[in-house]
């Protein structure tokens, strides 16, 4: 879905690379309260940032498979009888633990980086 959005330039107000490193945690976050299928997850992330950030679909499909392989989410087919069948993802207890830990790690890292970026040195 990135084809019709401008290519990320250095003037973007955020670093796509930094965001991409947190895709797993972001996806786990969207699954905390309810199970969702692929497009729903994509939409949730897109709408949450007001369209500022669109995750590449290829990245998402790879992420889903990695999370399933690591046991952080369960995947199963919904039983829709008409229209396209949907593959649903549900966070597991292991996934919740990893999500909580990653968020805590990020908060700690963020504090340290903010402090370091503001440091001029005392000598």
């Amino acid at each position, binding site marked *: 879905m990135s084809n019709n959005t401008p290519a990320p330039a250095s003037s973007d107000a955020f670093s796509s690379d930094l965001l991409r490193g947190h895709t797993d945690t972001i996806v786990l976050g969207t699954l905390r309260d309810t199970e969702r299928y*692929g*497009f729903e997850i994509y939409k949730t992330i897109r709408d949450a940032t007001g369209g500022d950030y669109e995750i590449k*679909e*290829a990245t998402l499909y790879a992420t889903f*498979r990695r999370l399933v392989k690591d046991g952080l989410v369960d995947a*199963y087919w919904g039983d829709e009888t008409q229209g*396209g069948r949907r593959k649903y993802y549900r966070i597991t207890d292991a996934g919740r633990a990893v999500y909580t830990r990653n968020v805590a790690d990020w908060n700690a890292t963020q504090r340290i980086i903010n402090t370091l970026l503001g440091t001029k040195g005392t000598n």
Partner: protein
Amino acid sequence: MATTDNIDRYLDEAFADIPRTPETADLKEEIRGNLQSRVSELEADGTKPEAAAAKAITELGDIHALVDSIDVGEPATRPGDTAARLIALNKVKTDPGYVVRTVIFSLVLAVMLAGVIVTAAFGSGTTGTLPNGTEWFAVGLSALLVAILVVDALRQETSQHFRMPLRRALGYSGAALLGVAGLDVIGLSIGGREPEEAFAGGVTAAVLSLIAFIWLGVTQTNRRKPWVKELNSTYEIEDRFSNDPAAAARFGIYTVVIWIVGIGLFVLLSIVVGFTWSWLALLGALVVFFLVLARMLFGFDQAKK
């Protein structure tokens, strides 16, 4: 629907030169569902169907890049590997409501049937204190519960099976209802709680049920999902007897010995203590037979390697 056609045609073309593994097939189906959702979203926003399909496909980007970004899975080396992968990829979630319903109905059903069996085995004296009409309530309720259990189970989509069309499921359900009601009545008649006319009715119902089951069984078409069919056609028999004929021959000899001893004991006990207890020899032989079978067929995976 034109938009669905577009998506399907596009996916078929895009996946044409991609090796077909369970993983790529799974990815293709998942993309299909997501594309359709995106198209619905665009149409809801006012985009024309054709344009919506084209836009959704463009947004998806290059399929090859997408396939490269996932682990497409290696060719299976052992049949068990394929099976485990296929099962994981095709999992359908069980409806918790269905499980709860089934457990509750089964418990009630067990109580009803236990009552009928006790009546049949020990005579109406055991249940004679119950008011008249209770047995008809038990017959009706147990038959109805079986019918509900059957239709409910057949209407569930599982990982391996599609759900059964409602009319056919009701057919199985009706046949089961007739069968259980018939057997209930036969049991109650044997126990002396019902007159002989009821016994004849019970037999008729049971026979009709049997005919219905045979008809349904003969006309039954495939209900399994494509991946199960594929798995079954490629699955090699891996049990011990197929791989180790000597073990199969040894098992054959054990079987003969077990049954000679069992039948010999049965005859001996029948003469000495009578039929009341002699059947235990046959039961014992059956138990030993199955233990030996289990032990020999599945017990030596480590030793084989």
